[in-house]
C-alpha cells in the first residue's frame, strides 16, 4: 500500500483535535448515562418501597397478579425478573454465594432448597398452624431444611395423564379396542392398561405416547408407583437406586420405546417442550405431563377441546406422582427482609390468584378446592388425587441432587433407551456414581 505524496503538506485529518475531543466528550457522557443498563427497575436500596423478585416463566405468570394487587394495596412496586430455568439456578446460586444480591425474593424450585438453605432466611414466623393446615404435607415438609422453613410454597404441580378424549370416546375405537384386548377402552389406570392403550393408538402416523429421555421426574414417579420407599435415596439417605422397584420402573419406562415402539423417535432428547409440542400437534394419543398443561393448550392447536385429564397411572403401589412445587425464599443477607416477608405473607393470603394465570396453579388446598369441579378446571381433581395419593413422595433433600440428576439419572435413562439395554446393570452402575456424590 504505497502512498506517494506530491505535496509536502501532510493530509488534513478528517476530524480536527477539537472535534475529536468534543465527540469523545459527548460519547463519554452518553456512555456514563447509559452505562448502568437499560433494563429492570432501580437497585432498590434498603427501606425504599420497591421489591425485586426473580423467577422463571411459571413464577412470572403466577406472581404477576399478586404483585399488581400488592402495589395497589401497599404502594410497593414489585419488579418481577424472569430468567430461564437454568439461568435462575445459576443466578441465585452465584449471588447467594457471593453476597452481591440483585433480588429480595426468589421463586425457586424445591430441589434447590437443600443446596441454598444455609444462605436463606428462616420464614418460621409465617408458618402458623392455620397456614400449615392448608398446605399439602409433602410440600410443607419439602420447604423445611435443617429444622427451619426456608421456603413458602408458591404453587405446586404434579404429573397427571392427558389423553385424547375424542379418540377414547369414539365408538369405533372402543369396539376395536375391546375386540383386541378384551376390556373396555378407558383412560388407563395401571401400567398394563397404559401399555395396551399406547400400543393400540400407535397407528396411522400417530403414536400412543411419548417417552422422555431428557428429564427424570416422570421415571421417578413410576419408581414410586412400583412401591419403592423413596427415589434414589431412602429416608435415611441410603442409596436405593438399584432396588427392584427402580429396575421395574426403568423397564416399564423404556420398554415403551425400545420394545413396543409406541413413542416417536429420538426419545433420548425428548424433554418437556418436545413432548408438549408433539401432543399439541396431535402426534401422541396420551401424554404424562404436568397438570398445568391443561389450561395452556392454545386455541389454535388441533387438539384444542379434545383433551381429557385423568390421575397419574398407578403401579403395584397405586397412584403416585412426584410433586414439583416452587417456593418463595428470601436471602438471609438481604437488605429488604421485612418487606420480603410481608410480600410472601401477602402471596400466601392471595394464593388463589395464581389459578387465574396462564400457569393456573396454587399451593393451598383451599385454593384448589375452590375451583375443582368447575368447568374448565378438569385438571384439578386428577391433580388433587395424585398429590394426595399415599405413595406420592417428594424428592430427597440432598444438596447434590442437581448433580445426581445431571450426571447420573438423565444419562442412565438415556442409556436405557437403546435396544438390549441392561436395566439392572445400568442402575447398579448408577449406584456407584450416586454414592460418590452424596
Amino acid at each position: 500500500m504505497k502512498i506517494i505524496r506530491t505535496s509536502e503538506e501532510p493530509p488534513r485529518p478528517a476530524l480536527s483535535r477539537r472535534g475529536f475531543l468534543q465527540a469523545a466528550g459527548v460519547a463519554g457522557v452518553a456512555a456514563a448515562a447509559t452505562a448502568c443498563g437499560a433494563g429492570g427497575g432501580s437497585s432498590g436500596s434498603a427501606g425504599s418501597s420497591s421489591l425485586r423478585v426473580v423467577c422463571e416463566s411459571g413464577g412470572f405468570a403466577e406472581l404477576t397478579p399478586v404483585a399488581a394487587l400488592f402495589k395497589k394495596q401497599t404502594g410497593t412496586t414489585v419488579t418481577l425478573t424472569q430468567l430461564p430455568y437454568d439461568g435462575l439456578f445459576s443466578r441465585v446460586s452465584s449471588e447467594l454465594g457471593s453476597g452481591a444480591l440483585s433480588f429480595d425474593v426468589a421463586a425457586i424450585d424445591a430441589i434447590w432448597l437443600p443446596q441454598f438453605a444455609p444462605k436463606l432466611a428462616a420464614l418460621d414466623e409465617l408458618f402458623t398452624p392455620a397456614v400449615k393446615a392448608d398446605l399439602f404435607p409433602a410440600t410443607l415438609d419439602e420447604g423445611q431444611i435443617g429444622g427451619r422453613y426456608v421456603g413458602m410454597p408458591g404453587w405446586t404441580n404434579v404429573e397427571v395423564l392427558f389423553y385424547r378424549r375424542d379418540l377414547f370416546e369414539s365408538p369405533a375405537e372402543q369396539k376395536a379396542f375391546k375386540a383386541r384386548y378384551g376390556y373396555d377402552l378407558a383412560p388407563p389406570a395401571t401400567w398394563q392398561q397404559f401399555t395396551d392403550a399406547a400400543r393400540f393408538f400407535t397407528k396411522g402416523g400417530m403414536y400412543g405416547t411419548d417417552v422422555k429421555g431428557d428429564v427424570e421426574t416422570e421415571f421417578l414417579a413410576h419408581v414410586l408407583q412400583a412401591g419403592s420407599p423413596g427415589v434414589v435415596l431412602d429416608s435415611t439417605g441410603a442409596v436405593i437406586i438399584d432396588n427392584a422397584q427402580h429396575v421395574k420402573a426403568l423397564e416399564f419406562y423404556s420398554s415403551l420405546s425400545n420394545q413396543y415402539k409406541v413413542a416417536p423417535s429420538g426419545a433420548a432428547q425428548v424433554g418437556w417442550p418436545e413432548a408438549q409440542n408433539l401432543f399439541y400437534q396431535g402426534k401422541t394419543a396420551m401424554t404424562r405431563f404436568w397438570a398445568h398443561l391443561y389450561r395452556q393448550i392454545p386455541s389454535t392447536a388441533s387438539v384444542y377441546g379434545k383433551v381429557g385429564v385423568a390421575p397419574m397411572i398407578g403401579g403395584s403401589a397405586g397412584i403416585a406422582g412426584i410433586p414439583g412445587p416452587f417456593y418463595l425464599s428470601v436471602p438471609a443477607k438481604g437488605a429488604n427482609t421485612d418487606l420480603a416477608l410481608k410480600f410472601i405473607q401477602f402471596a400466601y393470603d392471595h394464593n388463589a390468584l395464581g389459578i387465574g394465570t396462564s400457569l393456573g396453579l396454587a399451593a393451598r388446598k383451599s385454593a384448589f378446592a375452590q375451583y375443582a369441579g368447575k368447568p374448565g378446571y378438569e385438571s384439578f381433581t386428577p391433580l388433587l388425587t395424585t398429590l394426595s395419593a399415599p405413595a406420592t413422595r417428594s424428592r430427597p433433600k440432598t444438596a447434590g441432587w442437581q448433580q445426581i440428576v445431571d450426571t447420573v439419572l438423565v444419562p442412565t435413562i438415556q442409556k436405557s433407551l437403546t435396544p438390549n439395554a441392561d436395566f439392572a446393570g445400568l442402575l447398579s452402575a448408577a449406584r456407584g456414581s450416586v454414592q460418590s456424590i452424596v
Partner: protein
Amino acid sequence: MRHALGRRPARLKISDRRFAFLLMLPACLFLAAFVLWPLLRLVIDSFFQISPLAGTRSFTGLGNYRTALESARFRNAALRTLEYTAIVVTMEFVLGLGAALLFTALGERSRLLRTAFLYPLMIAPVVAGLLWRYLLIDNFGIVNSLLARIGVLSSPGQISWLSDPHIALFSVALPDIWLTTSFMSLVLYAGLQNIPPDVVEAARIDGAGPVRMLTGIIVPLLRPVIAVALIVRGIDAVKAFDVILIQTNGGPQDATNTLSLLIYNTMTSYSQPGLASAMSVMYLIVMLAVAVVAVRMIWLPGRRAR
C-alpha cells in the same frame, strides 16, 4: 524541506523506546487488570476446596488436580475437545479451500457472491447454535424431512443428529463449521491470489493435472497462510462454548461435553469453583504449550523468511 524552527517551542523529546512503552501502557494495564489478575485468582483458587453456599474455603494442595485427573469425565471431556477441534478445523479447511478454489477458478466475476459468502461471520454463535438445533432436532427439524423427501434418508427418523451419542459431537460441530468456513475461504482465497503466475504456467506446461497442481504447487505455496488460519481457528474451536451449550448442554450422555462445558457446569451447576479452577489451569497450560509449539514451528519461520 521545511524547518522546525519558528513553528512551536521545542518539545521535550523522550526516547523512542519510552514513547513506544507509553503507547502500549494503557492496553497493558487493562490486560493486567482484567486478564492476568483473574488468572492469578484462578490459579490460587485451584488449590482450595471452595463451597460458596456453605461459605467454606479450605486449602487442599494438589487435591483438586488429583480429583480432576482421576475423573473419567474430565479425561473424556479433554478427548472430546480434541475430537471436536479436529472435526471442525478439518471440515472448515477442506470446505474453505474448496470454496476458495471455486472462487479463484471463476475469477473476478464471482466477487459479489464472495461477499454474500461472508454473512455467517456476523451471526452470533448462540443464534447459530439455536438455528441448527432447530434444523436438526428430532421430529421438528426440517433437514431430515427434506433429506427423506429427496430420498437420501428412508425416513425422517433414521438419523437422530442431536440425540444419538455416536454422532452428536459431529452434529454440534456443524454450526461452528457453517459459521467460519467463509472466514477460511476468504483467507485462502487471498493467499491463492498471491501465487506467482509463472509457477502455475510452468506446471501447466509440464502437463500437471488439477490434482497434481493442488497437492504439488498450491498447497505448499499456501503453507504460511494455511498455518496461520489453522492456528487461529484451532484456538477458537477449542474454546467453543456457546454453540454447544445451547444445542445439547453436554448431552446426550455426555457425548458433547467438552472441557469448556464441563468447567462451566462444575463452576455453576455443581458449585465447585476450586475443582473448576484446577481444570481450567490444566486446560490453559496445555493450550499454551500447544500454541507455543505451533507458533514456533509454523508461524515464526514464515515470518523470519520474509
